[in-house]
């Protein structure tokens, strides 16, 4: 459950379903928007992760 990737996919799933239902009424348009938002979020997340890969993560920030 605490896999970063799974949580990201779950988050993208909930948000994309929400906006699909909020903004579209016809089934075909719903599927199109769902795929756009879902794949955009997951793909965008992976792209940002890939871009950040060369940077060292460093020690965790101290807890105030």
């Amino acid at each position: 459950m605490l896999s970063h990737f799974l949580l990201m996919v779950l988050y993208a799933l909930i948000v994309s379903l929400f906006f699909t239902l909020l903004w579209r009424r016809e089934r075909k348009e719903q599927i199109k928007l769902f795929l756009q938002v879902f794949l955009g979020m997951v793909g965008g997340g992976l792209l940002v992760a890939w871009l950040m890969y060369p940077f060292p993560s460093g020690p965790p920030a101290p807890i105030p």
Partner: protein
Amino acid sequence: MPQPPAVPERRGNAVVAVLSAWLVPGLGHFYLKRPLRGLAFFALVVASALIGCALEGNLYKVMAGQPLTMLATFASMGMGFLYFLLRYALHYQGNIMGAGYEYGTAFLLTAGLMNLLLVLDVWDIVRGKKE
């Protein structure tokens, strides 16, 4: 002969619709005779809030000297009765040491923000600006 401008059709009491939409996610849509959408929205908002709690995320409250917590609290309170249930009845507290703290906070904030968008959607429907 020129036609008078069309008056937007009203579909219910705006105050009741907006208040019910905020208080219980999806109830505003249910009130406006869109039960399936209301049910789906309820499931999505509650799922987001429950996942946030399972991950021990932060349910924001206003903290002295930190004005940005006011915005975050407003966003969290957007989830309606769930916020008050978690904070005052279940005494929910996030766990900053928890592995899922940041994700959980994002899920909890998202639940509130989604419900605020639902309130605006209900407002548009009741004013006749949206189907």
